[in-house]
C-alpha cells in the first residue's frame, strides 16, 4: 500500500504504459485493503494530492494556460487521460466528493477510441446531473456521435442522453434520437436504446414527441427483435397514458402480439426465461391493455381472452424452480389485473376469484402479498363483494402476518371490502389491531377506520363511540383531519350532539385523556354543553372543572380552544362566570401573545355592562358547508405520487366509480354519508392529481382544483376522411357500382375488395397483396367512421391481416357491416406497414346505403299507386343538374348502367316517355325494417341536364340517396378515348418508395 501511494500518478502513468493500468489496479487494491474508513480516506487524499500535483505541475510548466484543460492537452495520451478519469470515477463511486476533473472527463467524449469515449461518457453520466452547466458543452459531441456511422458511438451517445438528458438536450437532440429509432438501417441495439432514450426525454418534456410520430412508433411494437419490441412497448405505454386516442392502435398490436407469443409460440428461444417466454414483455402488454377501455371488437376480445386463458392454464402447474415460479406469477397477476379491468369475462373472473382465495393462504409470503393486492383490486371493481367476504377471517388474520408489507395489503383489502353489512366487525377488528400495530401504519389505519366509521355508520352511538375510542387509543397518530371531521359531523347532525357531548365529557373528566380529545371536548362542550347541563354529572361547574383540569398540560393551540369554550360558557352558564373570569384574568398575564390577546378580549367582552355583544359573538356556530371529507383526500394523497396511471385505487367500487353513476350510500343521514360520494378527481382520472390538504377547521374541502389539465392538443385521426390518400376515388367510384374489384393499387400494395350484401348485413373481404420486392411488416389496418354516423353503421372485424406479408403474397381481412339506420358517410380504413420506412394510406370503403338495397319489380299500376301514396316532401327529394367537366356527356347506356349499379330495378315501359327511367327497390336496415324506394329520372340529352326524383317510405332516405346518385351521375361518360399519360412524380415515388429511404 505504501509503495504504490508513494509513487506519483504521473510517474506510474509514464512508466507503465501497458493496457492493464497497473497503477489503477494497485490503487484499487490498496483501497480494498483499507479496513477502516479513515485509512481509505488517507489513501484517497494521497491519490487526490498526486493527481492535483500532476495538474499543477503541468500548469507551472506552462504546458497549458488553462488549469482545467491541462489533461486535454496533447502531452498526455488518451490512455493517461482515461486512467486518470478512471481513478476519479472509482473514488467517486466509493462515495467521496470529486469536485474537479469533470471537464477532463467530458473531453474524453470526443476521443476516437471506443474505450476512451466510453469512460468519458460514463464519467459524464456519473459526475454531471441533468442541470449541470457543463452539459451545454457536450451537446455537440453527442450530436456528432448520434449521427456517426459507428453504431457503438450511437449507443454511447444514447446512453448519455438516457442518463442525463434534460429538457434542453431533448429539444436539441430528440429529432436525431427519433431518426435512429425509425431508420430502417438502425441495428436492434440502436433502436431499443433510442426508444428508451426518447422515453426519458418525453418524461422530461412531453412536447418533444410529435403527434405525427405515433403511427410509426406503434408499428415498431411488431419488430421481430424482442428487445426492440419491449423497449418500444415501454415507450408506447407512457405515450398512451397521456394520449390514449392517438395511441389506440397499440391496443390491437399488444393483443395480437400477446397471442402470437403465448398461443402461437412465436418468439426467439433466447427470450425464454426459465420456460416462460419473455415475462417482461407479457407484463407490459397486459398492463398496456389496462390503460384502455375494453375493446368493443369481438375479434380483439377473442385474442385477449385466448391469451388470458392460456396464462391461467399455464399457472395451474406450480413449478419448483423459484425463478420460473416468480416469472409465471408476474404474468399471472398482471393477467388477473387485466381480467378485473375487462370486467366482462365472467368465465375468467370466476376462475380467478377461487384462485385468489388460495393465494391469500399461500405459504409463500410474496404470493400472499400479491393475492391480497389483487383481491383489493377485485374489491375495487367487482359487482359483488361476496366472493371476497367469504375469506374475511383469513384477511383479518393477515393483519397479524409477520411481514409489514402483507399487513399493509391486508389493511387495504379490509378497507376496500367493507360495506354496511360487515362494517362493525371489520372496524372492531381494526381497532383491536390498532393497539399493537406498527407505528408506520398507524396513521393510515386511523384514517381508514375514521372513514369507514363515518361511511357505514348506521346508528348514532356507534359513530360517536368508535370515533372517540379511536382518538383515545391512537391519539398521537390521529391527523388533524380526523378530529376536525368529528366536529364537523357532530355540528351538522343535531341528533348526535347530546350523545357526543355526554361522551366527550366523560373522556375529558378522566385523569388521562389525549390532548386531541381535549380539543374536541373544548369545542363540543362550548357549543353543546348547555344541552346536557341538566344531566347528572354534567352540570356547568363539572364541565368547567373537567376542562380547566386539562388546561395546564396542553399545548397553546388547545388552550386557545378551551379559552374560547370558556367565553361561550360565560354566555351559557352565567352562574359560573366568576370562575371563568378568574381564568381569563390569569391568562391575560401570559407571555403567549395569542393566548394573552384572547384572554384580554374575552375579559373585556365578559365585563361589558350588557351582554348583547357577548350573545352575538357567542351565537351558535353555523353548520359546516357540505363538502367532501378531508379524510379521503388525505388518504389518497398518500398514494397520489406515481408516474404511472393508476387503473384503480384502494377502496370499494364506489370509490372507483365516476361521480355520475354514484350510488348514494345509505347512511345515518345525508350529511353523514356524503364522504362516500365521489373520490378525488385526480385519483379516478389517474392523472396524478395532488390533493392538497389545507389545515383550517372550516375548510373541510381539501381538494385541489382537480386533475391536471388534460392535453388539449387535438390529435389528428389519420384513419378519418380528412386524411384520404390521393387517388382513393378511382377505385372507390368503380366499386360504388360493383361488388368486387380493386380499391387501390400502387407500386407496393394492391387492395382488393369483395363484398356481399344480404338484408341489412354486409360481408366485406379486403385483400392486401404485397407488390414490393421485399416482405412488409407490421401490417396494420384501422377502421374509422365519422362520429355522427356512430350507431347508424356498425361493424365487427372477423380477423386481422397477417402482421408480415411476404413478397408477392396476400393477406385478407373480413369485416361484417350492419346498417342500423340510413347512413350518409362511408367508413374509412387506414392501412400502414413498414417497407423500410413507414408507408400508410387512408381509403374510403365502398360501403354506402344503396348497397343495402335490392332491386324490385313493379308494374306500372303499382308503381304509380305507390308513387302517389308516398307523396311529396319530406319523403321526396328532387334535383336538376348538368354534366360536370368538359368532354363528358350523359347518354342512355351510361344512365342505365349507373342506375342499375345503384341497385335499382329499372322498370321499362312504365313511364310514358321512353327516355325516362323509372326504378324501384327495397332498402334493408337494422331491426328487419324495409323501406320502399322509388326513382324517376328524366334526362334532357339536348341540354345535357337530368332531373332526378326519389321517393321513399321513410323520410331519411331520399336526401342521402339523391346526393350519392347526383355525385356519380354528374360525372357522365367521357366522349374521348383514353389517352396515355406519362406517370406523375407521385406515381414514380410510389413505385420506388420501397427502395428509397425516406
Amino acid at each position, binding site marked *: 500500500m505504501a509503495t504504490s501511494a508513494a509513487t506519483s500518478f504521473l510517474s506510474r502513468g509514464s512508466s507503465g504504459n501497458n493496457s492493464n493500468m497497473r497503477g489503477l489496479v494497485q490503487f484499487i487494491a490498496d483501497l480494498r485493503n483499507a479496513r477502516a474508513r479513515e485509512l481509505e480516506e488517507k489513501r484517497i487524499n494521497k491519490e487526490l494530492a498526486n493527481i492535483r500535483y500532476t495538474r499543477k505541475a503541468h500548469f507551472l510548466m506552462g504546458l497549458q494556460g488553462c488549469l482545467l484543460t491541462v489533461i486535454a492537452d496533447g502531452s498526455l495520451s488518451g490512455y493517461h487521460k482515461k486512467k486518470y478519469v478512471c481513478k476519479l470515477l472509482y473514488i467517486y463511486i466509493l462515495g467521496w466528493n470529486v469536485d474537479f476533473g469533470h471537464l477532463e472527463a467530458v473531453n474524453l467524449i470526443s476521443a476516437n477510441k471506443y474505450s476512451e469515449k466510453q469512460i468519458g461518457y460514463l464519467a459524464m453520466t456519473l459526475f454531471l446531473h441533468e442541470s449541470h452547466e457543463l452539459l451545454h458543452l457536450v451537446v455537440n459531441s453527442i450530436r456528432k456521435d448520434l449521427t456517426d456511422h459507428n453504431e457503438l458511438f450511437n449507443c454511447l451517445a444514447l446512453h448519455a442522453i438516457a442518463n442525463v438528458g434534460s429538457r434542453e438536450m431533448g429539444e436539441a437532440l430528440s429529432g436525431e434520437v427519433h431518426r435512429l429509432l425509425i431508420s430502417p438501417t438502425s441495428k436492434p441495439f440502436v433502436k431499443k436504446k433510442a426508444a428508451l432514450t426518447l422515453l426519458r426525454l418525453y418524461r422530461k418534456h412531453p412536447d418533444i414527441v410529435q403527434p405525427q410520430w405515433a403511427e410509426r412508433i406503434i408499428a415498431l411494437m411488431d419488430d421481430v427483435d424482442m*428487445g426492440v419490441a419491449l423497449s418500444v412497448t415501454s415507450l408506447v405505454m407512457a405515450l398512451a397514458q397521456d394520449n390514449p386516442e392517438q395511441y389506440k392502435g397499440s391496443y390491437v398490436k399488444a393483443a395480437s402480439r400477446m397471442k402470437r407469443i403465448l398461443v402461437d409460440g412465436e418468439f426467439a428461444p*433466447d427470450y425464454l426465461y426459465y420456460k416462460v417466454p419473455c415475462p417482461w414483455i407479457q407484463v407490459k402488454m397486459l398492463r398496456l391493455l389496462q390503460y384502455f377501455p375494453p375493446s368493443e371488437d369481438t375479434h380483439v376480445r377473442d385474442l385477449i381472452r385466448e391469451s388470458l386463458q392460456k396464462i391461467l392454464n399455464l399457472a395451474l402447474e406450480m413449478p419448483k424452480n423459484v425463478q420460473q415460479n416468480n416469472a409465471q406469477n408476474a404474468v399471472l*397477476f398482471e393477467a388477473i389485473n387485466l381480467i378485473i379491468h375487462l370486467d366482462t369475462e365472467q368465465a375468467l373472473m370466476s376462475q380467478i376469484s377461487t384462485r385468489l382465495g388460495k393465494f391469500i393462504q399461500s405459504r409463500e409470503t410474496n404470493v400472499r402479498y400479491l393475492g391480497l393486492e389483487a383481491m383489493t383490486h377485485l374489491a375495487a371493481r367487482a359487482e359483488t363483494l361476496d366472493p371476497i367476504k367469504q375469506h374475511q377471517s383469513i384477511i383479518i388474520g393477515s393483519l397479524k402476518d409477520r411481514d409489514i408489507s402483507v399487513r399493509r395489503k391486508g389493511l387495504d383489502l379490509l378497507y376496500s371490502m367493507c360495506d354496511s353489512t360487515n362494517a362493525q366487525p371489520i372496524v372492531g377488528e381494526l381497532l383491536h389491531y390498532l393497539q399493537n400495530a406498527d407505528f408506520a401504519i398507524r396513521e393510515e389505519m386511523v384514517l381508514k377506520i375514521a372513514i369507514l366509521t363515518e361511511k357505514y355508520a348506521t346508528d348514532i352511538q356507534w359513530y360517536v363511540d368508535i370515533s372517540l375510542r379511536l382518538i383515545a387509543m391512537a391519539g398521537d397518530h390521529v391527523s388533524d383531519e380526523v378530529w376536525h371531521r368529528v366536529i364537523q359531523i357532530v355540528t351538522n347532525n343535531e341528533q348526535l350532539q347530546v350523545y357526543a357531548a355526554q361522551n366527550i365529557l366523560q373522556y375529558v373528566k378522566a385523569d388521562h385523556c389525549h390532548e386531541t380529545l381535549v380539543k374536541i371536548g373544548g369545542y363540543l362542550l362550548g357549543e353543546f354543553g348547555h344541552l346536557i347541563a341538566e344531566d347528572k354529572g354534567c352540570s356547568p361547574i363539572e364541565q368547567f372543572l373537567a376542562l380547566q383540569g386539562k388546561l395546564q398540560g396542553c399545548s397553546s393551540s388547545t388552550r386557545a380552544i378551551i379559552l374560547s369554550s370558556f367565553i361561550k360558557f360565560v354566555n351559557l352558564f352565567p352562574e359560573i362566570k366568576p370562575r371563568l373570569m378568574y381564568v381569563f384574568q390569569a391568562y391575560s398575564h401570559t407571555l403567549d401573545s395569542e393566548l394573552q390577546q384572547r384572554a384580554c378580549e374575552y375579559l373585556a367582552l365578559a365585563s361589558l355592562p350588557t351582554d348583547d355583544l357577548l350573545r352575538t359573538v357567542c351565537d351558535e356556530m353555523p353548520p359546516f358547508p357540505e363538502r367532501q371529507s378531508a379524510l379521503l383526500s388525505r388518504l389518497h394523497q398518500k398514494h397520489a405520487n406515481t408516474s404511472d396511471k*393508476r387503473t384503480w385505487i384502494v377502496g370499494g367500487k364506489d370509490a372507483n366509480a365516476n361521480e355520475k353513476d354514484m350510488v348514494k350510500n345509505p347512511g345515518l343521514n345525508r350529511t353523514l354519508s356524503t364522504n362516500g360520494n365521489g373520490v378525488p378527481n385526480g385519483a379516478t382520472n389517474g392523472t396524478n392529481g395532488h390533493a392538497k390538504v389545507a389545515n383550517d377547521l372550516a375548510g373541510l374541502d381539501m381538494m385541489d382544483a382537480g386533475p391536471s389539465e388534460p392535453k388539449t392538443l387535438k390529435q389528428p385521426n389519420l384513419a378519418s376522411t380528412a386524411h384520404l390518400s390521393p387517388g382513393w376515388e378511382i377505385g372507390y367510384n368503380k366499386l360504388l357500382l360493383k361488388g368486387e374489384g380493386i380499391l387501390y393499387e400502387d407500386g407496393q400494395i394492391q387492395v382488393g375488395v369483395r363484398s356481399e350484401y344480404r338484408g341489412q348485413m354486409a360481408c366485406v373481404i379486403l385483400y392486401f397483396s404485397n407488390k414490393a420486392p421485399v416482405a412488409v411488416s407490421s401490417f396494420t389496418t384501422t377502421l374509422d367512421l365519422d362520429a355522427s354516423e356512430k350507431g347508424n353503421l356498425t361493424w365487427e372485424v372477423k380477423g386481422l391481416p397477417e402482421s408480415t406479408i411476404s413478397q408477392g403474397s396476400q393477406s385478407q381481412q373480413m369485416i361484417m357491416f350492419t346498417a342500423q339506420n340510413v347512413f350518409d358517410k362511408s367508413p374509412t380504413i387506414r392501412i400502414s406497414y413498414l417497407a423500410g420506412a413507414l408507408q400508410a394510406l387512408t381509403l374510403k370503403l365502398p360501403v354506402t346505403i344503396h348497397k343495402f338495397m335490392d332491386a324490385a319489380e313493379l308494374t306500372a299500376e303499382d308503381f304509380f299507386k305507390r308513387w302517389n301514396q308516398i307523396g311529396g316532401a319530406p319523403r321526396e327529394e328532387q334535383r336538376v343538374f348538368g354534366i360536370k367537366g368538359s368532354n363528358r356527356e350523359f347518354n342512355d347506356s351510361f344512365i342505365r348502367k349507373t342506375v342499375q349499379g345503384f341497385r335499382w330495378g329499372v322498370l321499362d315501359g312504365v313511364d310514358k316517355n321512353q327516355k325516362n327511367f323509372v326504378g324501384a327497390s327495397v332498402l334493408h336496415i337494422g331491426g328487419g325494417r324495409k323501406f320502399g324506394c322509388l326513382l324517376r329520372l328524366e334526362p334532357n340529352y339536348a341540354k345535357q341536364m337530368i332531373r332526378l326524383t326519389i321517393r321513399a317510405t321513410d323520410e331519411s332516405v331520399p336526401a342521402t340517396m339523391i346526393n350519392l346518385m347526383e355525385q356519380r351521375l354528374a360525372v357522365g361518360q367521357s366522349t374521348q378515348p383514353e389517352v396515355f399519360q406519362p406517370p406523375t412524380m407521385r406515381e414514380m415515388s410510389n413505385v420506388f418508395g420501397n427502395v428509397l429511404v425516406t
Partner: protein
Amino acid sequence: MVLSFVLIQNRQGKTRLAKWYAPYNDEEKIKLKGEVHRLIAPRDQKYQSNFVEFRQNKIVYRRYAGLFFCVCVDANDNELAYLEAIHFFVEVLDSFFGNVCELDLVFNFYKVRWRCRTEMGRLAWEEEEKGLSDYHPALSPFSSCALHPEPSTPKSHISRITNNPTQVYAILDEVFLAGEIEETSKQVVLTRLEHLDKLE
C-alpha cells in the same frame, strides 16, 4: 413502470453500486442509501416478502448471501417482474465475470449458501460453509485473493474486472436504461458485452 434507483448494498449498509434514474441531489442520495439499508437489512428472508413500501414508492429487493440488490419502483408496478429483473441482472453479471463458480450452483443457492461480493466491477460467488453466516471477509480465501490481484496476468478475470471498475455500470446500461428494462435475453446481452470488451 419506471425505476427510481438501483442499489446494491452489503449487510453492513455499505453501498457497492448505486444507479439513480430520478434526479436526486447528493444529500438525498446519502439519505436514501441509509433509509433503504435500515428498511431492508432487518427484514427476515424466510417469513417476509421481497417487497416493502418505501416513501410513496416501493422497494423490490433480493438478497444474495451478503448482498442486497434493491430496486425502487412505482407503487403500482408489477413486483415480481422486477424481482426477476434483478435476478436476470445478477445472472448476467455472474456469466460475464464468469468461472468463479458454476452457474447451476448459483441457481441452487437455497441448497448451498453463497457469498457474493461485488466491489465495483468485481462480482464473485463463493461457497460458504453452512453456519458461517457471521463470517469475516478477511478470513475468506477469496478476499485474500482479491486483495492481491495479479495485474501482470491479464488472463485472470479478476484483474480484467478490476481494471475496469466502471464495467458494472456499462453492464447495467445494457440491461436497464432510462429506468426501464431494456433487454431480457442473456445471450444478447452477453454477446454484446463480450464484443464491447474486446474493443480498444
